[in-house]
């Protein structure tokens, strides 16, 4: 196949803010505000960001589980946002979603075999055949055959997530959107599910859009990463570049804040403390949205929204004053004669 599997360009999803007696629309939350990326077959693109950055809405918008207001989603060259309902249903065979809480997405009254077989039956597979396929899928995600007869409540969180994955894979999709798939799981179970997703990708060639708040997990699974802040992608880079030469000050701050399970590393590390809280997404700052917390912001940042610029081989940064390779945010802060809150070191 030529070209990327999935292309998202300038995607915009706004939610109305309603207020007053008549629930009048008084403004919009720009949950996703001009996001572009592409996903090739067999690769994993990770999306990270803190709560309210729009990463979950991004995943849902691609599948039209929420309707985007503007932009392009092209799957294998077809414009997903303009197709009718019938065609959209067909397209959802190829683009599936796995949610954080598998309990909410599994029918409590159905044995899990039937839950996994359901999408197959809806899409025209004979019942007997669908059940057989469901058993194979359950086996592929590491469940035992007798598990098929059991109900969701009989399983642990990790097992339920396996069922959720089996169901998403039933229709042999080419894109799987994973929204916080391991966030609710304990460490020892989390690594099982991460490895399972990896195995399935190698075996079936799925492309993953992996959305999570845990930077270590996302970096582990991703080939490329998108860092989001208040509805925008501030940096998009390979897993190596994100860590080795981050260019956006927010990425620097985010990386510095993640605790590493290594006392030696932790003792030496300097954490950058960002001032204040996330601004209200209903009325984001003018210009660059990160400027209110950015230790190196200039006047320009309040006036002009920084465009995404390619700093090296597809490493995209939306910052007027990106950090250079080999430079740190603290170097830049010092160079400007400013100060920033630092913990440790």
């Amino acid at each position, binding site marked *: 196949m030529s070209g990327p599997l999935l292309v998202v360009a300038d995607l915009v999803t706004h939610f109305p803010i309603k207020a007053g007696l008549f629930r009048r629309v008084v403004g919009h939350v720009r949950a996703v505000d001009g996001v572009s990326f592409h996903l090739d077959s067999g690769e994993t693109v990770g999306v990270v960001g803190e709560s309210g950055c729009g990463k979950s809405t991004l995943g849902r918008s691609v599948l039209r589980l929420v309707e985007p207001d503007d932009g392009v989603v092209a799957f294998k060259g077809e414009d997903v946002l303009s197709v009718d309902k019938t065609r959209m249903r067909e397209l959802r065979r190829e683009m599936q979603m796995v949610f954080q809480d598998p309990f909410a997405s599994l029918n409590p009254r159905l044995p899990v075999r039937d839950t996994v077989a359901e999408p197959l039956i809806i899409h025209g597979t004979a019942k007997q055949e669908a059940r057989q396929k469901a058993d194979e899928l359950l086996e592929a995600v590491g469940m035992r055959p007798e598990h098929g007869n059991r109900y969701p409540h009989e399983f*642990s969180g990790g097992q339920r997530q396996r069922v959720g994955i089996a169901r998403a894979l039933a229709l042999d999709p080419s894109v799987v959107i994973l929204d916080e798939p391991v966030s609710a799981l*304990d460490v*020892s179970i989390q690594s099982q599910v991460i*490895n399972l997703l990896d195995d399935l990708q190698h075996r079936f060639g799925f492309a993953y859009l992996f959305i999570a*708040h845990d*930077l270590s997990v996302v*970096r582990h699974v991703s080939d490329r990463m998108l860092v989001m802040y208040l509805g925008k992608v501030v940096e998009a880079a390979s897993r190596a570049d994100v860590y080795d030469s981050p260019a956006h000050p927010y990425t620097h701050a985010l990386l510095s804040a993640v605790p590493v399970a290594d006392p030696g590393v932790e003792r030496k590390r300097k954490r950058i*403390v960002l001032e204040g809280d996330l601004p209200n997404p209903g009325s984001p700052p003018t210009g660059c949205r990160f400027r209110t917390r950015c230790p190196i912001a200039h006047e320009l940042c309040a006036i002009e929204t920084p465009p995404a610029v390619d700093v090296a081989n597809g490493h995209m940064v939306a910052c007027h004053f990106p950090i250079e390779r080999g430079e740190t945010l603290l170097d830049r802060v010092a160079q400007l004669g400013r100060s920033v809150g630092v*913990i440790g070191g």
Partner: protein
Amino acid sequence: MEVQGLTVEFPTEDGLVRAVRGVDMHIAEGEVLGIVGESGSGKSVTALATMRLLPKRAQVSGQVLFEGRDLLTLSDRAMRGVRGSDIAMIFQDPMTALNPVFTVGEQIVEMIRAHAPVGKPLAWKRTVELLDLVGISEPSRRARQYPHEFSGGMRQRAMIAMAVANRPKLLIADEPTTALDVTIQAQVMEVITEVQKAVGSALLLITHDLGLVAGIAHRVQVMYAGRVFENGATDEIFYRSVNPYTKGLLRSIPRLDAKEKTRLYTIPGLPPSGLSRNEACPFRPRCEFADAVCGTVPELVEVVPGHQSRCHHTQEVSM
């Protein structure tokens, strides 16, 4: 504080759930002890039991010695005197500690006055100082606001201010930052450790996040299935663990600073149910070292001074 043979059982429809099965624990003045474990390991129940905050149906036995007194035998009234003054707790959800219908300042004032004969003006002055200490800007204006006017990170700070209001000797923080974003988490952990040092209290940090304890704990206690599996100085646990569960857990975590994309280590299977009556080592079905000897629960044995592990195969594991 010294905990000896703490056992907590909950009667349920399915039988007796044995959440904590004989936990020994001690924490010295000013010490930071991290208690690490996954859900169901009994780490939170242990903390709640020491504070006597479990529901009535919980059957608690053992001893919780605090400055020579056994907290488990105190009257409810005496225990209320201990809570919030000698021992204070920081929770995951600040709204469990903050009352939505009173201003933040009123609540901290009440906390101070409940444990010390202090006049209102003085208590108010101290409240403003406390809010300043935890990094809340414009503390005197903020003190007059209600919890809903605070952001999540600020509520967390307000709760910390309330917890340290009476300079407790022991601060218990149960998953204090789990609900927070990582940049806010860094701020809040900084506040907790700064305040803990300023007040001179010991800190018992209960978390599932090994990264969090790596940075601040002097000592780490790893729990599994209601028991302490390993206990030792932070470096001993992270670099010289001799317990198969701890080792497996450490190898299962994806590391942010990993160079190559490598496969994660996994501990197979699931933790046992709290209902289990099995007298074998609870980690046996998931352990690569398990053999016939593991049919009995191993004792917590000292490996090197100050470092204990619960395993029959310490020799092999440490190799």
